[in-house]
C-alpha cells in the first residue's frame, strides 16, 4: 500500500524536493549573511515591536508578555501573507516551464508553501528564545500549537491554490488580493490583541480563521489572558465555524485547481 503510494507520487516527491531546495537557495541569493536573515529578521522585528507597542505606546499592559504575543502574531501573519502573495503568481510565473513539460502542477504551489513553512519554523526558534528570555510559563497546552500551525498551513495553502488558478484567467486577482491583505492586516489581531476591541467587534472578527488561530496560539502557547473564540462565546465548539471554513475552502480550492490545471499551459 505504502509502496504503491510511493510509486504514484514518486515523480511529484522528487520534484517537490528539488523545487523547495531551489526556492530556499534563491531566497537569500547573493546576500552576505544568507540564511542568517531568517533569524535576524524576526529578531529585528521584535526590537521594533517592543519599541513601538511596549515602550512608545504602552497599550498592552493588561496582557503579560505582550511583546512576545505581538511577535507570534507577526510571524504567523508574515507566513500567511508570504504563502498567499507568492501563491497568486506561482503558476503564471512558471508559465515557461508549463509549456515545455508536463508535471503535476500542484507541486509548484506546494513547494512555495513548504519553503515558507521551513522559514516559519526557523523564526519559531527566535520566538522560543524570547519566550524563555521573557520567562513565559510553558504549560502543556503548548501541545496544541502544531494543530494550530497545521490549520494555518492548510488555510494558506488552500488560498494559494485558489488564487494561483484564478490568476491564470483573471489578471486582476493580484491587485485585489493585495488590497484585501491590507484590509485583513488591520482586521486581524496581528499588532494588537483582540481583547482591546469592543466586545461585539471581537465576536465578529474572531470568525476570521487567521484571527482565531493567532489568538488561540497566544492563548495556549504564551499567556492564557489572551482571548480565544472559546472564551468569547463560552463554548469551545464555536471553533467549528472557522476551522470548518478552512476545511471547506481547502477542499474546494484543491478541486478547482485540479480541474483547471489541465488547461494552465494553453491559457497562460
Amino acid at each position, binding site marked *: 500500500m505504502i509502496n504503491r503510494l510511493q510509486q504514484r507520487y*514518486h*515523480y511529484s516527491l*522528487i*520534484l517537490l*524536493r*528539488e*523545487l523547495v*531546495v*531551489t526556492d530556499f*537557495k*534563491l531566497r537569500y*541569493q547573493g546576500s552576505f549573511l544568507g540564511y542568517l536573515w531568517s533569524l535576524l529578521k524576526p529578531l529585528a522585528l521584535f526590537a521594533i515591536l517592543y519599541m513601538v507597542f511596549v515602550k512608545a505606546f504602552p497599550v498592552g499592559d493588561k496582557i503579560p508578555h505582550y511583546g512576545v504575543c505581538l511577535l507570534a502574531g507577526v510571524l504567523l501573519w508574515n507566513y500567511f501573507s508570504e504563502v498567499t502573495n507568492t501563491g497568486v503568481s506561482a503558476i503564471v510565473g512558471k508559465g515557461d*516551464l*508549463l*509549456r*515545455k*513539460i*508536463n*508535471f503535476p502542477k500542484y507541486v509548484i504551489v506546494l513547494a512555495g508553501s513548504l519553503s515558507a513553512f521551513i522559514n516559519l519554523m526557523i523564526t519559531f526558534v527566535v520566538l522560543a528564545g524570547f519566550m524563555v528570555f521573557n520567562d513565559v510559563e510553558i504549560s502543556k497546552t503548548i501541545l496544541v500549537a502544531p494543530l494550530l500551525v497545521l490549520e494555518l498551513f492548510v488555510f494558506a495553502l488552500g488560498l494559494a491554490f485558489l488564487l494561483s488558478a484564478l490568476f491564470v*484567467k*483573471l*489578471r*486582476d486577482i493580484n491587485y*485585489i488580493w493585495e488590497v484585501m491583505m491590507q484590509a485583513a492586516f488591520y482586521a486581524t489581531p496581528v499588532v494588537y490583541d483582540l481583547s482591546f476591541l469592543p466586545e461585539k467587534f471581537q465576536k465578529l472578527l474572531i470568525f476570521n480563521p487567521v484571527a482565531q488561530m493567532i489568538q488561540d496560539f497566544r492563548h495556549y502557547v504564551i499567556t492564557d489572558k489572551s482571548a480565544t473564540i472559546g472564551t468569547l462565546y463560552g463554548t469551545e465548539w464555536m471553533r467549528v465555524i472557522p476551522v470548518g471554513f478552512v476545511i471547506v475552502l481547502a477542499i474546494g480550492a484543491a478541486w478547482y485547481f485540479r480541474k483547471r490545471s*489541465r*488547461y494552465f*499551459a*494553453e491559457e497562460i
Partner: protein
Amino acid sequence: MSNAVEAKGIYKNFILPHEKKDSIKRAFTGIFRSKRKGYEVQKALHDVNFAVKEGEFFGIVGRNGSGKSTLLKMLAGIYQPTKGTISTHGKLVPFIELGVGFNPELTGRENVYLNGALLGFSKKEIDAQYQDIVEFAELERFMDQKLKNYSSGMQVRLAFSLATRAEADILLVDEVLAVGDAAFQRKCFEYFKELKANKKTVIFVTHDMNAVREYCDRAMLIDKSEVQLIGSSEEIAREYALLFMDKTSDHAKKGNGKRWGNGDVAVTSVKTKVEKDEIVITVKAQAKKAVDKLIYGLHIMGQDGAEITAMNNRMIQAPDIENIQPGDEIEYTWRVLNIFNDGVFYVMLTLVDDVAETLDWFIKADTFTITREQRSTTAVLPPVTVTNTLTKKK
C-alpha cells in the same frame, strides 16, 4: 508488436479572444455584450489518427504552422485535445526544448539536480551518474559557477548531457537539433543512432528531410491541420518537398513570368508518366493561327532549377510539325530514358517556329518524382558500364 502511442480522432481548437477577457472589468462588461462573438476558433488539428509501434522511429513533418508542434505537446500531455483520445504505454519523456527549468542564478551543479528532477531523477540517481554527465558535457571546471556565466553553447551541452540520461520508453523530440554547432549536431545524431540501436520508441518532429530519411522507420505528413499521409520516410520526404513545389507550379499556371510566347500555338495539357525504364511526357497543344513549321522542345530541371537536359525535335532528328491551321490540335509524346536519380524534377516545354519566334515557353509545365532504393547526390545516372583488369606482379 504492440502500440506505444495511439492517437484516435484528435481535434484541437484554440479559442482566441479578440480582446483577451483577462480582467474583471471585461469579464463584467462581457456579460452585457455576450451576444457579440468575442472570440475566434482556430482549428489547430483536425481528425488526426495514427499509431506508433514499440521501438519505432516515427517522424512528424509539416510546414510551419501546420499543427505538428501542437500535436507533440498533446502527446506530451502539455495540451489537452479538444476531442479524441491519446494513449501511451511506457514512460514518456519530452524534449520540446533542452534545459527545461534551468535557473541562471543557480550553479551548474544545482541545475543538474533541478533539471534532473524534472526528467524524473531522484537526487540519489543523479549522484550516481553526476560524473558521467559532467564529463560528457565537458564542463568539469565550470560546475560550481552560476549558469548565467555559461555561454549558450555550454548550457546546451549540459542540457543535452542530462537529456541523454533520461530513461524513457518513449521519447518526443522537437527539432532540438536545429540549435548548436556542427560538433554538437554530430553528438545528437550519434545519440539518435544509439536510440535506434536500443529499440527505443522515438517521435521526432522536424523539417530536416535528410534526418527523416536516415532515422525514421515511418513518418507522417501534416498540412493544413490534417494528416496528409502516413508512410515510409522516403514517401513522406518526397511528399513534403512537393508541398513547396505545388505552390510554385500554381504560379506557373497563372503566368507570373514563368510562361511567355505569342500563343499562336499553346500547350493545353501535359501528362508525365514515370515508367520503369522511361519517362513518358504527352503534350497536347492547340493552334490559334497558321504556323508553317513548329519546333518543339523539352527541358528537364532538378529541384534547384538547374537544367539537366535540354533538347528539341531537330536535335534528335525528329520531324517538325508542318502546315498547322488555326484550330488544329497537336499531340506529341516524349520518351526519355529513365536515368534519373531519386528526387523531384521539373518539365519545361518550348514551342518555337522556324524563324525563331517564341510561341510558347512554359517553364514549370509539370513535375515528376523518382523513387530509388538508394539516394544519390547527383541528378542522373547515365547507363554506364565498367571493366577492370588486375595484373599481378610477377
